[in-house]
């Protein structure tokens, strides 16, 4: 398996060419800095993303609260996580940092509120 990965570490946007299989990398080239190399390796073996969305809040000064994954989630689980988030029904007040879904889908990552909704 080989992949061209556009590096997103900095605005330069190097194209990193990686060859390998699910478990190991046999060749990596095209990066121009150590952070780029690390990014290319991670993106090839186990790509992760921070997920952000909103959840419905009842009885607050906003109908929605913004939320995020406290850490990066496996890219492949993003859509499944969205289903969990979609089902959330919160009640005001909600504060920034509140854990809304602990350990979502067993990933070890919490879904936390990033905004505040005051009780009306």
């Amino acid at each position, binding site marked *: 398996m080989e992949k061209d990965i556009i590096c997103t570490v900095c605005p330069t946007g190097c194209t990193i060419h990686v060859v390998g299989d699910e478990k190991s990398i046999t060749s990596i080239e095209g990066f121009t800095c150590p952070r780029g190399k690390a990014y290319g390796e991670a993106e090839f073996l186990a790509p992760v993303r921070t997920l952000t969305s*909103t*959840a*419905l809040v009842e009885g607050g000064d906003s109908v*929605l609260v913004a939320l995020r994954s406290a850490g990066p989630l496996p890219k492949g689980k993003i859509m499944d996580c969205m289903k969990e988030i*979609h089902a*959330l029904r919160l009640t005001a007040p909600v504060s920034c940092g509140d854990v809304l879904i602990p350990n979502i889908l067993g990933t070890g990552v919490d879904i936390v509120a990033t905004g505040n909704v005051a009780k009306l």
Partner: protein
Amino acid sequence: MLKTDVLVIGAGAVGTAITRELTKYKLDVICVDKNDDVGGDCSKSNSAIIHTGYDASPGTLESELVVAANPRYDQLCEDLDIPFSRIGAILPAITDEQFAQLPAIKEKALKNRVYDIEYRSKEQLLEMEPELNPDVKGGLWIPRESIIDPFLFVVAMAENAVANGARFLLETEVTGIDVEDGKVVRAKTTAGDIEAKYIINAAGLHCDEVADMVGKADYTVVPRKGQFYILDKNTSCKVNHIVLPIPTKVTKGKLMTPTMHGNMLVGPTAEDQLDKKDKSTNAAGLASIRDDVSKLIPNVQLRDTITQYSGLRANRNPEGLRIDVYDDLGGYINLSGVRSTGLTNSVSIGTYVADLMKKMGAEMVWKDNFITKRKGIARFHELSLEEQEELIKKNPLYGNIVCRCETVTEGEIVDAIHAPIPARSMDAIKRRLRAGMGRCQGGFCGPKVIEILSRELGIPTEQVCKNNKQSYMICGKVK
């Protein structure tokens, strides 16, 4: 089933003016329109000019009506509480060939009894209009050519008609007309049948379809598209008067004029088409506006545009404005060929139709309690500080500015939604109050107006529309 003395089909400028005129008499009047709002199709997208009729074909009904209408607007607009300005028009000749045409244009104006048309020298014109092409040779000055807010004009006439007892049934399309014993008796509509002694076809673009319902379609409507640019109030190149081109054999040409609200209006094109629904703009048409108007106003900055739109004129084939009654069809009046002079003509047509009804034997008894004055919604940004203060104290919603570009408050929007002719869509609010008509084109106020419409009309946001029923803004909830 609804019953009425008079059913007017079409709530554009003409249908609304007829409806209002007839409420001066002891008559029950219903006006129906297929659209969600008054203002029709043609009446809301035109050059917003109240013409003098200087260039009409002398001796025609159109000339007679437009020439008679113009002087009525000062009093009418004062009564209806709408903006109107007699800024006057200039007709500059840029080429020698155009200069040679001026005497004939003046002669035609005199035949139309527009006696206040005057010659102006190059120097005079450049002083009046510094942005004019400096090659100008001289031109004509037509002082009574005027500008109006065409949306408010129709809304105000309709509201005044409502105050005098008329009913407006919107989103009501006429699908058929029943004739019994050589006389119209009822209209079939999408909202049920309406029995009427008189039916007046003021359906504009669709007047041939209505005429066909009673077998009187001896003509067709040929929509003529006109595309326009609206420029930002801050554009660097402005004109003070309506600047008209010298007409050619092919077209009346493209003009530039201030609007009632300080924007510049540039256009229109003239493109005949078959589709009555096609109000799209196109790159070729817009480019032709640039080419033509820059001959008059070389520095015109079309990149300062805040919107482009097109309207359709309801031209008739065979040509000419006609108001017809038929010996073999009692109770029916057919209007056709009401085109670019229609906005101006509407009030004259109202009077003409009332007179025609009398001749047809209708019982036309004056009311002694006709209300002439209509009060519009207080325009917050036009008020003095003291008045603004007073208004906010009375209604705190006037302290919430929703539209930043045109300074429109929530109070005005709520008032418009609950007005005699209610504004029930995004466009209806835009046309009355200009929220969304400014330079951000609703980017900021749009989301808030959706909320306000939903709240005040008691409908889910999914039912808030831009204008007609299928033009939904929102397709559901995110969560």
